[in-house]
């Protein structure tokens, strides 16, 4: 985990900007004994926000929408993964039935 100052330094982020992002809910630091702490994932998230604002011309309102959708996609992907893992462990007969059902649903 990274402490506040180290995080600002590595993310090349001013503390005012970081505070604003935290207040907006874009970043959620972990609460630890000495204070707030950040992960490598938070660092990558900062980079994503910077890509969106600097390179792609997205404004603050857009960032909130995009992050929310990305977070939803990852939730969906995780569910889809565990669902397909669960399906993969079924006996071949049951899988064939599901495949037929899916094929029919797609028609």
């Amino acid at each position, binding site marked *: 985990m990274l402490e506040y100052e180290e995080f600002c330094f590595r993310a090349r982020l001013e503390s005012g900007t970081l505070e604003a992002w935290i*207040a*907006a*809910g874009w970043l*959620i630091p*972990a609460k630890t004994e000495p204070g707030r702490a*950040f*992960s*490598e*994932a*938070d660092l*990558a*998230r900062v*980079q*994503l926000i910077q*890509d*969106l604002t600097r*390179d*792609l*011309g997205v404004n603050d309102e857009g960032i909130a929408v*995009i*992050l*929310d959708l*990305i*977070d*939803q*996609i*990852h*939730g*969906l*992907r*995780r*569910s889809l993964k*565990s*669902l397909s893992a*669960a399906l993969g462990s079924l006996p071949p007969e049951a899988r064939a039935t599901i495949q037929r059902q899916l094929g029919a649903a797609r028609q």
Partner: protein
Amino acid sequence: MNADPYQVLGVARDASQDQIRAAYRKLAKKLHPDLNPGNKDAEERFKEVSGAYDLLGDAEKRARFDRGEIDAAGAERPRETYYRDFADSAGAAHEGARRYESAEGFADFADTDDILAELYGKVRGRGAKIRMRGPDLPFHLHVDFLDAVNGATRRLSLPDGSTLDVTIPPGIRDGQVLRLKGKGRPGLGGGPSGDALIEIEIVPHPVFTRQGDDIRLDLPISLAEAVLGGRVEVPTPTGPVTMTIPKGSNSGTVLRIRGKGVAKRDGTRGDEYVTLRIMLPGKPDPALESFVAGWEAGRSFNPREREKA
């Protein structure tokens, strides 16, 4: 990897910097790995495109490239990780991204389907560990001068269509921020809601001005009222009152009306200070002119005595 950057971005060699930037943005929006969590090719293409933009997006580097001083590879900035690598991984690396994951994308399935309800529970279960207070919601509210002095209730329309009754305490100051607990955005994972922060802007009054807890106003009076004294009606924030003007009052004389100023927290009020302004009748008056012309004491009085010294 070292393809011609102009071809990578799909622009002509004489494209303007703006055209190059537009072309990059168009491609980057399609290809950014975090906008394509499931597409492995997107990362390779994105690298190529951002490498090309690194080179051509900077007019100076672009000129050097055009002159053949640096090659297409010279500008590449390899980037190894994206947010999706954390969000989409298993185990320790995923730990930090978990808190952001949202099950709202299929929350409605959970009501109807047992299997998905199970999955929903899992994702939400993780999220529930993070309790986070909702963000504060800022507002800006114009308040009439007298409402600010006396206190009032105002109704605010929120963006979501609901309304909020705001009690403006008497004596509120310009720029003061009212905090309405729990009226901001909802919290995450059962966390408390944020607060509504209402910044007050007081609209100036045509007659009154405010100085701390006191009210000031200029009161026009007639020459007769100034010379002979009299009772006049004076506006105050709580309605007009009658005030006695002493005989021989002057322009600039300040009279105090106790307890007619701004309401204070302890229930008392500041004072109102009335500055008198003598007004002559609008039309020239022959009687007044002839009186003043023959008025020795008035003519020998020099009101600018002090300025001379």
